[in-house]
């Protein structure tokens, strides 16, 4: 369920973000309690709380007193913006570096991506 390379609270936070991005959790939805997280994933409740707290700080979740944690309105847009910011530095640039290292021209990369896109269009 979790890998041993990054702190588990960061993995909890990443998982929650993914759930919000792909719509599993909608804005206004209630999030599992940290105790539910703890028993479900067999992790320390403090670890789960730390992951949830990170998302509160980022303005993605908010607490309703006595009720629990909820997904904030506008959370999805915020996460999309975050991902777009990182997309070029974290995904495109390493790919371009690898392409140049192994001698794949960028034009080939672009052509490949366009072909994939065309295939997808024909499938629809």
């Amino acid at each position, binding site marked *: 369920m*979790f890998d*041993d*390379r*990054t*702190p*588990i*609270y960061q993995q909890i936070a990443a998982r929650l973000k993914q759930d919000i991005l792909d719509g599993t959790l909608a804005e206004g939805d209630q999030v599992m309690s940290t*105790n539910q997280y*703890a*028993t479900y*994933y*067999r*992790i*320390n*409740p*403090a*670890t789960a709380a*730390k992951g949830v707290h990170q998302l509160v700080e980022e303005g993605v979740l908010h607490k309703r007193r006595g009720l629990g944690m909820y997904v904030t309105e506008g959370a999805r847009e915020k996460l999309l913006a975050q991902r777009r910011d990182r997309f070029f530095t974290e995904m495109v640039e390493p790919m371009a570096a690898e392409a140049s290292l192994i001698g794949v021209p960028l034009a080939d990369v672009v052509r490949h991506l366009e072909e994939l896109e065309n295939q997808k269009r024909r499938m629809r």
Partner: protein
Amino acid sequence: MNPGTSVHEQPENLVEVDDLRVSYGDVTALEGVSLTLEANKIYGLIGRNGSGKTSLLSVLAAFRRADAGTVRVEGRDPYEDADIVSRVCLIRESGDLPAAKIRQIIGLYRELRPNWDQELADRLLRRFDLPAGRNVSKLSRGMKSAFGCLLGLASRAPLTMFDESYLGMDAPARYIFIEELLRDYVEYPRTFIVSTHLIEEFGRLFEEVLIVDKGRLIVHDTVDSLRERGVSISGPAELVDRFAMGLDVLGEQVLGPTKQVTVYSHPTDDLRRQAKAAGLELGTLPLQDLFVHLTTRPERNPS
């Protein structure tokens, strides 16, 4: 803490140990151990065989007396505390139980333990598949261990300690133990100390980790911070050496022109940037590797 105001208040720290020494004849099991444990957290106690884990737990449970230093559990010396059994429960590895039927021992605990939960005990009997009518001396090692886990959980003592209690239990039984411990902990928060060397499997259960080595406490940290502190640096030998200078190096490996060193330090973003700029690779160390490195390094020069 102000001693004048603490009399009627619950001590904020459940366990306070200062400069503890435990020895058996000429052999020193623990030396200069000081630690403070807050209430309602799950602690992992990690160490190699013979490192002093059991001695520490035995002192906290009043199974034996400190040879020097002070020990306080809920503000009292456990060894002088007639009521200790209602507050502290230590389950030692299998083989520590009287030769009686499971049902009889449960009856004994029910009388002895003020917070005993029979419902939980019944559920664990079922989940661990334990035969209540069988004599403990006839149980397999794994079953004895599982029964010990049952007794420790159902006792619901404010300070509950498991000393390698999982020995001989198979993976499904260990998973049940971890699951039931967490389930009961979130409902009835209390303090657990779980000693183990299965740090990968139990690591995520812990909030904080204590590592003892050769009778000394060498690490007391949160699991997350510990996980971030074990870093490997690899690249061309010369660059790696220059980079690792001044860092706490735990170990090194050379493979042809490349070298990998393991350092014990919290990598700052700055350090990460520098490493990247120098063309070095930074990696995180699994907890188990970090534990092995920390407990196998040669004695450091006191210079």
